[in-house]
């Protein structure tokens, strides 16, 4: 599914290296988590994969189902099956949530050569999915993320994910700013989407989210590299001892 090989990235303006050789493979149907201290490059990894401006790839590759992501426009990556749930979903006043989502769904379908959904078909699909995430009709009508609470914004991200049906989902600190109930709701939404042909890369600071979304593999990132990978027990270790032990152990090796 997703293959990142020796990825080196620096900030375009400052020439400051952020990723220093990230190598990571997420097979189809698996859930991988990336944990790591602040500034280790977790969010940068997600932005570079999704195609945000401002980063220069100096070395390495990233492919999705064999296609070179790094050469594609952000919208083409989305159409190819990549989805990034933002840590800070963007507010867009004056553009209705439904209008936005329908535009996105149909743009992706069009670029894949699939017929666009009619207004009726779209409405039917979104109603069912919104209900699962406890998103009411009023929230769908409101402008994108405007006046939404932190929890509503994150639920809206998951709704977009459910509607767009990507194959590779990246969640960038989706748990930040969520209370326990909201986190459970979001996790349930993610779990409902798990399938043998859909993979997840979950970026988080805390093990708590991983109690709800059980990962197959946990990666520890530090200073722009994956320094250790393991099973879910690695997240427990971080939760109990922090990163210091792991980083020291890696440094000694």
């Amino acid at each position, binding site marked *: 599914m997703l293959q990142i090989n020796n990825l080196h990235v620096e900030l375009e303006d400052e020439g400051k290296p952020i990723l220093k050789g990230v190598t990571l493979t997420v097979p189809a149907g698996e859930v991988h988590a990336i944990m790591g201290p602040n500034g280790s490059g977790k969010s940068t990894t997600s932005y570079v994969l999704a195609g945000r401006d401002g980063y220069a790839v100096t070395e390495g590759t990233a492919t999705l189902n064999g296609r070179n992501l790094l050469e594609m426009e952000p919208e083409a990556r*989305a159409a190819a099956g990549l989805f990034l749930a933002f840590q800070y979903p963007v507010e867009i006043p*004056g553009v209705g949530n439904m209008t936005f989502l329908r*535009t996105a769904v149909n743009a992706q379908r069009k670029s894949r050569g699939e017929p666009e959904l009619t207004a009726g078909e779209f409405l039917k699909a979104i109603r069912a999915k919104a209900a699962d995430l406890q998103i009411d009709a009023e929230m769908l009508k409101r402008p994108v993320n405007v006046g939404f609470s932190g929890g509503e914004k994150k639920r809206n991200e998951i709704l977009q994910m459910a509607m767009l049906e990507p194959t590779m989902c990246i969640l960038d600190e989706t748990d930040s700013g969520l209370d326990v109930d909201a986190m459970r709701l979001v996790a349930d939404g993610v779990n409902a989407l798990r399938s043998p042909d859909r993979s997840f890369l979950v970026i988080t600071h805390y093990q708590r989210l991983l109690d709800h979304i059980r990962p197959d593999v946990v990666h520890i990132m530090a200073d722009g590299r994956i320094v250790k990978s393991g099973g879910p027990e690695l997240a427990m270790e971080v939760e109990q001892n922090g990163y210091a032990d792991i980083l020291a152990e890696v440094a000694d090796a």
Partner: protein
Amino acid sequence: MPDSAVLDIMTPTVEGQGAPDPLAARLGALPDGGVTAPARADALSRLRAMGLPRPRDEYWRYTDPAPFTAATPAAQPVDPAAGDPPLFSDLDRLRIVFVDGRFDAQASDDLSMSGVSILPLSQAQAQPGHWVGAAYGQLEQAGQTPVARPFAALNTASATDGVVVHVTGRAEKPVQILYRRSGDAADVVCHHVLRLDAGAELTLLENGLVGARGNLLIEADLAPGAQLHHVAALRAGNPRVSLTHLFARLASGSTLKSFTLSVDGAHMRSEAVLDMAGDDVVAHVAGAMLGDGSQVHHDDTVWVTHGGLRGESRQVFKKVLKNGATGVFQGKILVRPGAQKTDGYQISQALLLDEASQFLAKPELEIYADDVKCSHGSTTGALDETALFYLRSRGVPRERAVVLLVLSFVADALAEIEDERLRDRIGERLEDWLTARASGVAG
């Protein structure tokens, strides 16, 4: 009967030198004003006294008056291929059509409607004793102090036609002024006079293609409790030299809400002079404009005077500029002594889609009362790259994402249109224009 003013203007005032008089050249032959003749003669003498604007005048620093002062407009070919889907055609409304600035009875609807009496100016002024004789030019003249507005006086002096509307009750449907043009060089001067009795309500729509050059003026006199909603949308896709004026006098408890959409065009200035004379007046004036190309220059000049208690005014202007277009905003809130509990608000914002475009804003507050709330703001910015990335990351192609973000930017101005149907029509028109532009089709 020859009007003495007409004779006067045909004679150059600079005597003995044989120099051409630019004002005489600009005015040409004046129409017979009938009952409005005295007001026209007065406007002409006022105009002579103030002279045409010069680039160094305080309120003409940012907008070159030359295209408006030129004796004749540059010819703008009528492009029959330029499609113009009717804007308000699905609404039940009363249409008044002006072709090259003259009333076209054949193309217009029957002008009778309950609660409203409507006549073209050309007919009203020919009726001895018609009330328009006393009203014509009055609010325009009042609006000349403290800032001279020569082109408004020129309009009063030389208007060839317009519509005269007396609203006595609640108009059963909107009145639409629809401009059409037939000639390449039509130089249009229309003067509309609206009088709303106490508690009367009218929605006025204004759209179409005015001419190669237009000088349009509305005088609106609102009695206590009257409501006027005005939505104007000037046609896209044509180089156009255009001046519009709105002069309104608002008695106690009256409401005026005016919105103008302007797309393309060449050299445009839109002036609003609102006199909130009574108590508890609500006056909102808003505009959205989209300009593409270095020939586009669009100026909104607004002067709101709070004269009564508890007045609420809003000025909301949004300009989207690309490929070297220029936007100008000059907005004033004047709060007179004693106009306590005034709530005045003003915002002007420009979205610059490239570095070649520019926005010039001059907000002014002048306050002589001590218990008021006034705020103003002005911003100039580029597209929000984070929002653009957010939309694209969902699969929305860049061009479409830009359209959505531009619509998002102007949404606050559109929100000033109270009638949802009208707001939707204007929003659709905007989106069509943006989409056509984004896909490379000239709008």
